[in-house]
């Protein structure tokens, strides 16, 4: 027994020691790492990508995932068919971090959070993920940002805040933040002079733009405090239903099951979902069909993508 344990330990120590060598080799000379063999050596430059695809997905129930699987056809009548081998990351930044650190990975994130210095967004069906393309309806992967509330719980302040978001000023902020406006001919907003507290809860995708909107609103109405909690679409909607917050934020359509519990929904913006790969990846363009195949596990190697 003791012998086995010590053998395992020795093996582990050797591995970690080797790991140290290999990482220094890899950084000092580009060709050095090819001696390790296996698929890491198969990453040839210039002649197209190869290597096993690391699929990064969001967790079940995420608004981004819900929209992505629906739009890409990963969701069939049998439910969400995302491959079991997909790595699960539970936030937009973790997806981006993981993809930027792994040559063979692919992921999807909200277009507004896309950082072109860290990762690369691919064209979907030949269309680049840009605000113009989404507005024109050319880019396939987009979804609404929704605010939901209970009519009887909504205060005048809440109403006024929603009015502000849908006004010309509010929509200008939405578009500045990289999202897509829902109303281009919105009227201008005039400060109401209301005071009080407002609580919002919900999607981590909607959260960042909502912070900016709230700041602008508090600048116009000095007596207002807006508290935004970013916990996820599902939590926000539940909190709104049970009355613990006034307005819920969701990055997916509100389900009928939730609407039937007395919620009213209001679309405030559109968001594209960028399909992202590592910057060293030579693939520029994927069809929706290829993305579907990658995410359902039908295609598992970059060499299968021409």
């Amino acid at each position: 027994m003791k012998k086995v344990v010590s053998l395992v330990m020795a093996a582990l120590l050797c591995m970690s020691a080797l790991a140290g060598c290999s990482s220094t080799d890899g950084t000092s000379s580009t060709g050095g790492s090819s001696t390790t063999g296996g698929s890491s050596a198969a990453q040839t430059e210039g002649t197209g990508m190869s290597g096993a695809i690391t699929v990064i997905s969001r967790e079940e129930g995420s608004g981004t995932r819900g929209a992505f699987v629906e739009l890409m056809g990963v969701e069939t009548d049998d439910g969400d068919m995302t491959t079991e081998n997909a790595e699960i990351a539970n936030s937009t930044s973790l997806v981006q971090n993981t993809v930027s650190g792994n040559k063979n990975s692919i992921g999807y994130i909200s277009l507004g959070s896309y950082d072109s210095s860290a990762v690369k967004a691919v064209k979907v069906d030949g269309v680049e993920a840009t605000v113009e393309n989404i507005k024109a309806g050319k880019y396939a992967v987009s979804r609404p940002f929704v605010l939901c509330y209970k009519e009887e719980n909504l205060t005048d302040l809440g109403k006024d805040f929603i009015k502000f978001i849908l006004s010309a000023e509010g929509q200008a902020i939405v578009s500045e933040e990289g999202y897509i406006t829902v109303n281009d001919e919105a009227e201008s907003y005039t400060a109401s002079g209301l005071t009080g507290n407002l609580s919002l809860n919900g999607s981590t995708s909607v959260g960042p733009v909502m912070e900016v909107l709230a700041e602008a609103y508090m600048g116009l109405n000095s007596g207002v405090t807006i508290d935004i909690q970013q916990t996820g679409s599902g939590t926000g909607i539940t909190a709104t239903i049970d009355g613990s917050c006034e307005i819920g934020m969701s990055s997916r359509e509100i389900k009928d099951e939730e609407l039937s519990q007395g919620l009213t929904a209001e679309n405030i913006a559109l968001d594209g979902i960028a399909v992202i790969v590592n910057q060293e990846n030579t693939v520029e363009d994927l069809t929706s069909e290829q993305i579907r195949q990658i995410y359902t596990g039908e295609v598992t190697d970059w060499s299968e993508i021409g």
Partner: protein
Amino acid sequence: MKNKLKETVMHVVFFLTACVSIAAVLIICVYLLGNGIPTIAEIGLENFFGITWKPSKDLYGIVPFIVGSIYVTAGAIVVGVPIGILCAVYLAYFCPKKLYKILNPAVRLMAGIPSIVYGFFGLMVIVPVIQQLAGTSGKGLLTASILLGIMILPTIIGTAEPALRAVPGSYYEGALALGATHERSTFSVVLPAAKSGVMSGVILGVGRAIGETMAVIMIAGNQTKMPGGLLDGLRTMTSNIVLEMGYSTGLHRRALIATGVVLFVFILIINICFSLIKRGDKAS
């Protein structure tokens, strides 16, 4: 008279503070079991202890996560326990005083580092190394085991070192007098004498490893499938709860609480082991 009143008041105050912690445990128990057990009944034992987790299709099999938790914890033991025990022995019996002044605070500092920082360290340092070495995505059982092994070190050292120091000096001196070397007396006489304290440290470390969440989420891959090998991704029970809590509704949410019940049972088992060892120690 006045003193007596003071005495009684303070008695009540101390009693109440003692009650707070007990009440907290009780409330958590009642809440977990009250929510979890009806949920497990609703889902059905066969479904709940199945191997497929797909909430969108009403499949709530948590066995892959139970196995994941056990694998990761076992991995952490393999990596962390030998290093931890040897380190404790070194600190207690071999370390020069000057070095001890640096090492001891360093080990204590390790315990204070937030787990999310460990997770980030794993993501930025261990993951790329495994990626290069194995040609996989770098996230998985091996990465999680190494990181958790590091994370449980302070727990093990912190309990084992005082236990080693508490061994009466006569044991060590007796061994020396019989002609054993310093090393031999330490490893063959003192270490076995401190066995129960060292084991307590190991078990506390196991508790820490099985309950660890944030760091594991970042480096384990979190796939819902049954873990297949050392380089495969896996998901632990704690990660499952945190990953999906934010967006879950209805039965899905309650299934996560039920996962918590299973985790709670595991922690209970670990704590019972801990007390048994302590009791065994006293009896001997």
